[in-house]
């Protein structure tokens, strides 16, 4: 039995899931296949509908 959790993919969804679980005091292993996390959102200039900066 393990309390650890594996999150696969470090885009906005994986980042959010990892942070939520970490805040609940679970130990999280976040695996991302690219050299850095961020996913597609990191490539966006700004986001709708507020035009906030993506990163």
């Amino acid at each position, binding site marked *: 039995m393990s309390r*650890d*959790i594996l999150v696969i993919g470090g885009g906005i*969804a994986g*980042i959010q899931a990892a942070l939520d679980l970490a805040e609940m005091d679970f130990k999280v292993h*976040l*695996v991302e296949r690219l050299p850095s996390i961020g996913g597609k959102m990191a490539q966006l*200039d700004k986001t709708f509908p507020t035009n906030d900066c993506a*990163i």
Partner: protein
Amino acid sequence: MLDVGRHPNIKLMAYSEVEEVNGEVGNFRVKIKRKARYVNEDKCTGCGACSEKCPTVVPDAFNEGLSTRKAIYTWFAQGIPSTHTIDTEHCRQFQGKKCGICQKVCQADAVEYDQKDKFVELSVGAIVVATGYEVFNPNRIPEYGYKEIDNVVTAIEFERLLSASGPTGGHLYRPSDLKVKEEVPALEKSLKKLSKALERFEKKYGQKSEEFYKALGKEEQGNDPDKAKWAEAYEQKEEVSKRLSEYKAILEKMDVAKKLAFIQCVGSRDIRFYPFCSGYCCMHSIKEAIIANEHEPETNSVIFGMDIRAVGKGFEEYKIRGADHSSITYVRGRVAEIIQLPDKTPVVVYEDTMERVVREEPFDLVILATACVPNKGTKELAGILGIELDRFGFFRTTQANPVDTTRPGIFVCGCADSPMDIPESVAQASAAAARAAQVIVETEMKKAS
């Protein structure tokens, strides 16, 4: 993003992949491959001296190939982790040529060409899959001329063109003009070389190249190999200088793109490809048109779509604001074809279905709103995890359990499940996290009782 790198409860393994999963909810055994970066993560300070000196230039995938990076690189400037990585497919050292420059210049002694992939085995109680999506490849619709027509780009490429940290510093230059700009230095170099060659001939024979060439009968060239070379060099020089002056004329007139066409549902709502609506692309076209107009207030945009799907809090208002304040026109109709004029102007051929007429309209730049499709490697990952895919190739879920996959203890969120925007992805991620926490607590309680 920063929080993930710093959180004491999160172990971040970037540049890594899941290789094997066994066991069951509460007790999965997982094997992870930590791919060799050939740069020591603990030593690398991210200073960038290595990439500055690296001689190998490679298209930059983060910028969708619209700029270049080096063979030793970071994914993007603010990336986490900021460790550099060597792209062995291009690196001279790994391709058997002499180099080793990055290792020499690294002050931190972090470059390790002999690094090997490492394998990590973990035991976890639950798994959350958040592997996202890929954009539809518009080459599958040849009528749109993607990659054939320089000034047709995808929406994600356009995001990079809009970005202040992108390949053009946020200036909306047309890719055809950028290509010309890029070619000028090489042409200038070749012109210089050819001119020097001609000078040598002129000195040797005491005659101007132009006069020599005019006086020269074609047959004679074959007789004297040296003069044939001279004639050839002269022809080449004429050709290069003609092209160079054409290019310079283009660059003199070069201006940012101010008339934009956005084409909706490229690959989505199309029975030839994906019948579903990708949900977010109407909104990102409106967003991109608004931002382009903020950068350059003379910008006008036309969004061509069957209808505009602005479903979400504040979305309809955003759409209307785009029309009222950012010079966006919405045209109902599907684009049949994009053609290119000799000056590289793309022309959109479409039927305005409100007015029932077929029209052709030139634009500076055409942006394709491509569908959200399953990510590369999704099928393989589904095999490793032992979970099912739906008929489109996304991970299968049901309406009653929208974040549960077909295997207990494995959950999914974001675009790995289906197309959705950022707020929806975040909400689903919180739901998947809660479900993962729940099954662990349940397993613990079962064990205790």
